[in-house]
């Protein structure tokens, strides 16, 4: 199937954030904090204001003078009012006629700062593993504690207790397009055009930061050059809008790639302790402890811990468990979502651990997992019933492939398996407006395509399936937050799964209305000579003849499709502190990696790779395949070489694409993708969201392959040659 955005993108015909322009536009640059933690004693903006081309300079004072009162009370004001919390945090901003002038002026602002103690890493905050009392430490911004059953007794009577500690690293989304936006402010009305995955969420966020009503602000998304979670919450927009107020001109703000890295909002490190009690070959008790670096984030980050722990418990039946996790504030930029937030890191630890346990027991790792994985009807740790789940089927398929690989496995190679699970997010729901016109269908909605095709293509495919109308006669239109109906955003693998259901519902109501009008029980649509026909058995009606005069005047039959998801529940009595989250559906992913280990250098070569992806229903198989391949490649980066390196002074040492090492195409092995259908998910036609699941098991699969090849486990990701070499005791 050809995507409608393919040709315009290939021809350079779509506009990204970087392409934004407006008449009279100024360019902006940020003044960034020179210390990771401190107070601004003095900051003179006057000299920068007098520099050539400079039109406006704004700092903390301008929040007070230029914005409504609410802006001072925002949870996170435009600029920090008291403390600088991370190195490079924007503390002022400049707008000038040219980008060079803006950057020069920004560099001329030299604040006098008083430095405060820096906590660069989790270990700086907690040199020892914290006790429950740590929940009261001001640097703990999230705490979750839950338990079920007599864990202690199970550990006491276990045949074997397997205990390990894992470390994971910071990983960046690396969307090809850095953040960019253009803000305008006139007469108390604000408009921002920006590259965003969540226009409506951003509107809410910005309204609170600027102290304005949501109705005073319009967010218009540009085409998004990759998001991967990094283009959600407010990022550059508040600075551009404040400068627009100060200068009374449109202001464009974009960042360099170094700034993109240094401003962060991505996956941060974690330390994970896992203890598992086994009796009779089965897991009978689990202890999971987590320290999650959340950077300079504010209190109320329980969800980060809750999600992580869900992945750390994994898709395994657990009779008894105790879990406790802390979100730890450090002087790094705040964490932010990153394709399958918290999952690849957590699953690296869990699946390495499970694999090691199986090996210790002398059981085949796939067989061992098959003994404990959820099946439909099982209960999760928080007592939610498990729905249709293709993980077992995935493991069985993987076992066949692994068997075939093993028959011709060269010396020095190993095969690793890992599984992961995900749940399609509903978000806060979503809506779409469908207008069936005499010449075709137009779906108006509020999300911009972020690259995977789920918006411009996926939503059209859903309508095609319901209506029977060919794709060529379906157009997905975009509207800004003033014109489009609400939707929660392109995240959580929800676009097709949740917004797609809004489209599905809208399409079904079109069918119902038209069936009634032609007096049939079943109809479908066709397009012939540019005319939409309503087909009921042998009868064909021109749509145009079925429209009321009002509809004709309005251009067609218009319906709203809405989807706000069913409420799911967990047993909250098991949760002693913080909160945990129910799943919408259960999406499984099983991966196999064959890895060659250079036992003298620690270098790894992933020789081949296979992914077995539970998709519910593959609405568009080639698009799903692309998602799975992309997820694997991204996961390989995190497994092998991608890592944000901070110095003890909380300085990011590798803010660039030379030293932050993404895989290049030549580093990627052949990837075999197998789609597992038949386990219905929460999306239309039983589809499951698959944007995120394919990245999840990758680091674990690679680590398990290394263990298979060498008998040695690496407890830290990424598995750089140096780490592998140390694990192999070469150093």
């Amino acid at each position, binding site marked *: 199937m050809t995507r409608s955005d393919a040709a315009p993108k290939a021809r350079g015909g779509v506009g990204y954030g970087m392409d934004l322009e407006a008449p009279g536009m100024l360019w902006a640059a940020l003044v960034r904090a020179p210390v990771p933690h401190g107070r601004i004693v003095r900051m003179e903006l006057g000299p920068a204001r007098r520099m050539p081309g400079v039109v406006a300079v704004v700092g903390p004072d301008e929040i007070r003078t230029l914005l409504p009162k609410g802006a001072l009370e925002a949870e996170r004001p435009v600029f920090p009012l008291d403390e600088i919390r991370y*190195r490079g945090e924007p503390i002022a901003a400049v707008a000038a006629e040219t980008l060079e002038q803006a950057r020069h002026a920004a560099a001329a602002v030299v604040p006098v700062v008083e430095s405060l103690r820096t906590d660069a890493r989790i270990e700086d905050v907690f040199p020892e593993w914290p006790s429950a009392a740590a929940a009261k430490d001001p640097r703990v911004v999230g705490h979750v504690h839950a338990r079920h059953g007599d864990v202690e007794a199970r550990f006491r009577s276990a045949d074997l207790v397997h205990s390990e500690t894992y470390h994971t690293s910071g990983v960046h989304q690396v969307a090809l397009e850095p953040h960019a936006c253009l803000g305008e402010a006139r007469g108390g009305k604000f408009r921002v055009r920006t590259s965003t995955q969540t226009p409506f969420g951003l509107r809410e966020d910005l309204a609170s930061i600027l102290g304005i009503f949501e109705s005073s602000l319009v967010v218009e998304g540009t085409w998004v050059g990759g998001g991967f979670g990094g283009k959600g919450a407010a990022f550059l927009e508040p600075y551009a809008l404040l400068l627009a107020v100060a200068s009374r001109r449109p202001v464009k703000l974009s960042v360099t790639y170094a700034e993109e890295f240094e401003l962060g909002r991505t996956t941060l490190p974690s330390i994970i302790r896992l203890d598992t009690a086994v009796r009779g070959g089965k897991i009978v008790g689990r202890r999971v402890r987590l320290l999650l670096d959340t950077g300079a984030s504010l209190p109320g980050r329980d969800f980060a811990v809750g999600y992580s722990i869900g992945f750390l418990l994994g898709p395994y039946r657990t009779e008894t468990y105790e879990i406790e996790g802390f979100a730890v504030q450090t002087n790094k930029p705040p964490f932010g979502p990153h394709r399958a937030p918290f999952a690849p890191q957590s699953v690296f630890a869990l699946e390495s651990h499970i694999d090691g346990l199986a090996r210790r027991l002398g059981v085949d790792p796939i067989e061992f997992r098959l003994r404990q994985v959820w099946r439909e009807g099982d209960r999760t740790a928080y007592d939610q019933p498990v729905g249709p789940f293709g993980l077992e089927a995935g493991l069985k398929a993987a076992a066949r492939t692994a068997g075939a690989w093993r028959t011709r496995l060269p010396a020095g190679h190993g095969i690793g398996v890992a599984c992961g699970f995900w749940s399609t997010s509903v978000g806060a729901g979503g809506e779409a407006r469908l207008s069936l016109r005499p010449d075709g269908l137009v779906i108006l909605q509020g999300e911009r395509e972020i690259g995977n095709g789920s918006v411009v293509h996926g939503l059209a495919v859903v309508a095609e399936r319901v209506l029977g109308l060919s794709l060529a006669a379906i157009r997905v239109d975009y509207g800004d937050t003033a014109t489009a109906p609400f939707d929660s955003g392109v995240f959580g693998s929800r676009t097709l799964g949740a917004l797609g259901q809004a489209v599905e519902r809208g399409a079904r109501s079109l069918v119902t209305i038209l069936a009634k009008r032609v007096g049939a029980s079943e109809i479908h649509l066709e397009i012939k000579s540019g005319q939409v026909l309503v087909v009921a058995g042998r009868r064909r009606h021109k749509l145009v003849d079925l429209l009321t005069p009002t509809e004709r005047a309005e251009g067609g039959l218009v319906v709203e499709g809405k989807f706000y998801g069913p409420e799911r529940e967990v047993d909250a009595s098991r949760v002693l502190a913080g909160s945990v989250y129910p799943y919408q559906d259960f999406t499984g992913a099983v991966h196999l990696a064959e890895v060659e280990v250079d036992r003298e250098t620690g270098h790894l070569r992933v020789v081949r790779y296979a992914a077995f992806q539970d998709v519910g229903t593959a609405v568009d198989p080639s698009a799903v395949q692309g998602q799975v391949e992309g997820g694997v490649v991204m996961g390989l980066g995190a497994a092998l*070489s991608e890592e944000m390196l901070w110095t003890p002074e909380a300085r990011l040492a590798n*803010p660039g694409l030379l030293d932050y090492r993404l895989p290049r195409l030549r580093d990627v092995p052949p990837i075999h993708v197998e789609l597992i259908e038949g386990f219905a998910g929460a999306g239309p036609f039983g589809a499951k969201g698959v944007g995120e699941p394919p990245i999840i098991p990758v680091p674990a699969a690679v680590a398990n392959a290394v263990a298979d090849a060498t008998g040695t486990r690496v407890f830290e990701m990424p598995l750089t040659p140096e780490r592998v070499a140390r694990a192999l005791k070469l*150093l």
Partner: protein
Amino acid sequence: MHLDPFELHRPESVEETVRLARDLGPGFDYLAGGTDLLPNYKMHLNVRPHLIALDQVRELQGYTPERIGAMTRLANLDADPEIARWYPALGEAVHGVATPLVRASGTVGGNLLVETRCFFFNQSFFWRASLGFCLKADGDRCHVVPQKEKCYATFSGDLAPALQVLGATVEVAAPEGNRRLPLDELYAADGDGIQRHRLGPGELLVAVHLPPEARRVRSTYLKLRPRPSFDFPELGLAAALTRDGDRLSSLEVAAGGLETYPRRFRSITEGFVGGTFTDDRIRELAAAIQAAVRPVHNTAYPPDYRKRMTGVFVRRAVRALWEGRGAS
């Protein structure tokens, strides 16, 4: 990241070039492919107001297997099967430089004179300003070895060690006339990462010459780097030898990516030439070279790892050559 304005000069002969260089004094840089210089300029690293572009200078263009003009693009060498056949080490080194895009612009001269690299140096202006500038650009201390007043930036060109073991010499033009010197002498063994070569003010690298013996040795180049598709050398190990029955009749080993200059291990390899060569001897050689190198902590991999890998790579390269097979 933006380039500051500069004035571009485009001479057409060596004579014109060195004259221009003399007239401009210290305020210029030569611009070859620009793949090293311009990224550094964008980070405001030692920016000069004048650039002398070498792309029109006649004598620097073109190559034969004996004489490689300084402006020869790496892509041209990479595409030439003769180079790989005559000089395997050179072919492998060229092929391992960066990416096809960089090789299309990057030149041999630029590669030999590539700026030394350091974690604390190859960073944006904001980054360096917030840490405090270092000796190599704008500052007065070293963040790697703070006790010393010396720069330890690492030589990270791929071609130099390969050409060293092949016995290359270089042709240099100066206002006073041309001179020829062994490639080793282009670099200062006792120097530092700032004064990374021994060219005099305004001196121009014109060409690299390879002696006839270079075709008779077995040679290879092994590169240690995070991604096999990219990345500067964390260790670039070149070896060349000739075998006469069980006797080793010549041996050269050189390494880049470890210290401030590409280092040839003459004083060590000499001791192995002439005698019979065995696996034990190969191990001794590897251990001796490993013990001699002094990497510091300013690249992606830590020094203990690079040092250890030096031994591994020497062993692999020399053993493969000795046994008459490719090492990479």
